[in-house]
């Protein structure tokens, strides 16, 4: 075989940096948000770099990427970058190009925003488009939620930053557990075991070992070496299904969405926090998931109306207390809200600091 290149690694980043960045690398002095979605970084050298941030559905066609490339060439000498939340950022040196670029971006059906006290694009996973363990879709839910909240992308009228993330199962590839609002697909029934296939497709000791609650035991069923599940112990994590395709979890009646609130990763003000359960279950209702979008919009607007300036959702809830959060949102507090996994007691209220 001809020479085969391997382990070359990614292109070195400086290959793709615009000259203004190479010249001012590490010399940036400050930045200002000029208007929604547009900021300028000013260097010690006096150079100015403008950024226009454009929202994206993350799932993009090559045709759209070529559109991005064309715009970068037309307005930015061919330079652009993406963000950790899958937005596109056009990097401009000529201020007069900002408005024409924005006009062209809108012509493509995309929005400019997501900087400052706003919502950014929703980080999400693959859902029914591409993953075997999805309890809900990802792109569709995200599209419906963003249609509802887009004004908070295009403006900076929220009290603080709003970070929403979606993961379509408890694997949380999208790692949602530290978001202001986390949309998490959940299963609610134990795996259905295809006893004729377990031996063929799965390694039984690994399957038993995969269960965090030791709910799975080897068993012979109808003459087949297989496994059984102690259903009381199952918390529907789908870990077994990942190890053993003969134990599918997906189920149209029992799969759906849970909503978690009040997490953050940034260290600004409050330390990073996990998101906490707000709504245990909402049925999947494609194509537009109205119950989910309504619930999210309600929580966002309540926070927006009541939080102090710069207060992230979790900081606001911590200040007012969870009982008040449930009273204000009208969300019913129920058994599922009380933790019953490891060290659950650490989450019980252990003081009389209460509001009435």
């Amino acid at each position, binding site marked *: 075989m001809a020479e085969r290149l391997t382990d070359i690694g990614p292109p070195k980043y400086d290959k793709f940096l615009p000259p203004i960045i190479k010249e001012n690398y590490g010399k940036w002095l*400050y930045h200002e948000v000029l208007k929604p979605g547009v900021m300028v970084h000013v260097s010690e050298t006096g150079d100015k770099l403008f950024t226009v941030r454009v929202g*994206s559905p993350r799932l993009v066609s090559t045709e759209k990427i070529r559109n991005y490339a064309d715009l970068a060439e037309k307005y930015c000498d061919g330079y652009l970058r993406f963000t950790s939340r899958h937005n596109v950022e056009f990097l401009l040196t000529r201020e007069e190009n900002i408005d024409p670029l924005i006009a062209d971006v809108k012509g493509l059906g995309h929005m400019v925003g997501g900087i400052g006290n706003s919502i950014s694009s929703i980080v999400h996973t693959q859902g029914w488009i591409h993953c075997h363990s999805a309890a809900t879709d990802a792109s569709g839910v995200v599209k419906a939620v963003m249609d509802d909240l887009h004004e908070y992308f295009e403006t900076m009228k929220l009290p603080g930053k709003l970070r929403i993330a979606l993961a379509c199962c408890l694997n949380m590839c999208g790692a949602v557990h530290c978001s202001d609002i986390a949309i998490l697909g959940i299963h609610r029934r134990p795996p259905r075991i295809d006893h004729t296939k377990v031996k063929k497709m799965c390694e039984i000791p690994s399957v038993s070992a995969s269960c965090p609650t030791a709910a799975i035991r080897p068993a012979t069923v109808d003459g087949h070496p297989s496994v059984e599940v102690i259903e009381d112990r199952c918390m529907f994590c789908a870990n077994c299904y990942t190890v053993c395709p003969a134990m599918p979890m997906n189920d149209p009646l029992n799969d759906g969405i849970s909503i978690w609130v009040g997490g953050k990763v940034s260290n600004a003000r409050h330390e990073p926090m996990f998101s906490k359960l707000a709504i245990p279950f909402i049925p999947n209702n494609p194509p537009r998931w109205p119950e989910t979008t309504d619930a999210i919009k309600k929580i966002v607007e309540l926070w927006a109306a009541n939080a102090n300036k710069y207060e992230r959702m979790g900081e606001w809830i911590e200040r007012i207390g969870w009982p008040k959060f449930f009273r204000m949102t009208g969300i019913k507090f129920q058994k599922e809200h009380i933790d019953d996994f490891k060290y659950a007691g650490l989450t019980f209220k252990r003081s009389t600091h209460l509001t009435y």
Partner: protein
Amino acid sequence: MADQIPNTPKLDELEKGPWPSFVKEIKMAAKNSPMARDLLGVLELSYNEKIGHWKHGGIVGVMGYGGGVIGRYSDMPEEFPGISHFHTIRINQPSGWFYTADALRTLCDIWDKHGSGLTNMHGSTGDIVFLGCRTDALEPVFEDLTKAGFDLGGSGSDVRTPSCCCGPARCEWACYDTLALTYDLTMHYQDELHRPAFPYKFKFKMSGCPNDCVASIARADMSIIGTWRDDIQMNQDEVKKYADNGLNIQRDVAGNCPGKCMDWDGNELKIENEYCVRCMHCINVMPKALRPGKDRGACVLLGSKAPIVEGALLSSVLIPFWKPEPPYEDLKDLVETMHDLWCEEGKARERIGEFIQRVGMGNFLEEIGLEPLPEMVAHPRENPYVFYEEYYEEDDGDEGEE
């Protein structure tokens, strides 16, 4: 294979509304790609049935690599032959996700030639994701990619594709060079990236400051987050300008300071830097007036993960302050020690954070040769069940013996 774009009344609903639509993206690709047409077909079915139609991956990949490709097969290959195989290819992105238009077009050309025309820019791991590749096209895609200077990223139980914020390239707050460290680690760990040999995945994420724009503290086994040790740099004239422009410095800046170390008398801002916890809030609010100090470096944290298997963890402090200096041998030596220990003692699918929970942080530190420090804990233990490992008998230890 669908030779025309199928009817998708449910999905069409998601072409409506102001936010850009992924359905439009699939339809754009479907003009040229039978795979994208079949994807529309199966997705419409999922929208009707409220259930997915993908099977487990199995092992697929390119020759010599164990990672970088995630196998994906349809459970309805007869109805949707175009997506009977629909594997994900993860391509290692340039640090900070900077591109030229030409580089993007090169990637598009390769993908239009071999695949579905659909991508994630980017996957949440940070990689460029080519979505939907047939098994027989994997090698040709790989060959074209490497010719163009791109390589695969990680998947499986290996070092996952390291990623970072834009750092000093476009952020005045970067306390170290996130792009340089990310590139260096990516190149250093090529073998570990492409040939899974760990108990489970291992992620590095580099953020330039405590704002942590890549969510490193929540998503990386090793989270390297920039910070500084000396005083916040201050420009009193600019502080005053913020006040003159209507910022309520006492309430909105000092009032939110977790260190409770700021004082604004209406004229001058004072910071007792000794008590500043370097949270970034005041700097975020007044970027023209305040900057991180000059003695910059990073805090190295360890162990975050999503719930699977034992529950979610955030990374916790391992090295309170580290000066990242190429070639970063000190960090690499430490990582190697940790990897050796975890590979030796870790269970299958046990992330390093879970491993530490199981064996105890104290024992872990002893094994990797780090001293325990008060910065590593929120507070000392509350429970009195201490596992002392040695005890003495009456006759032991006349001083200096043994």
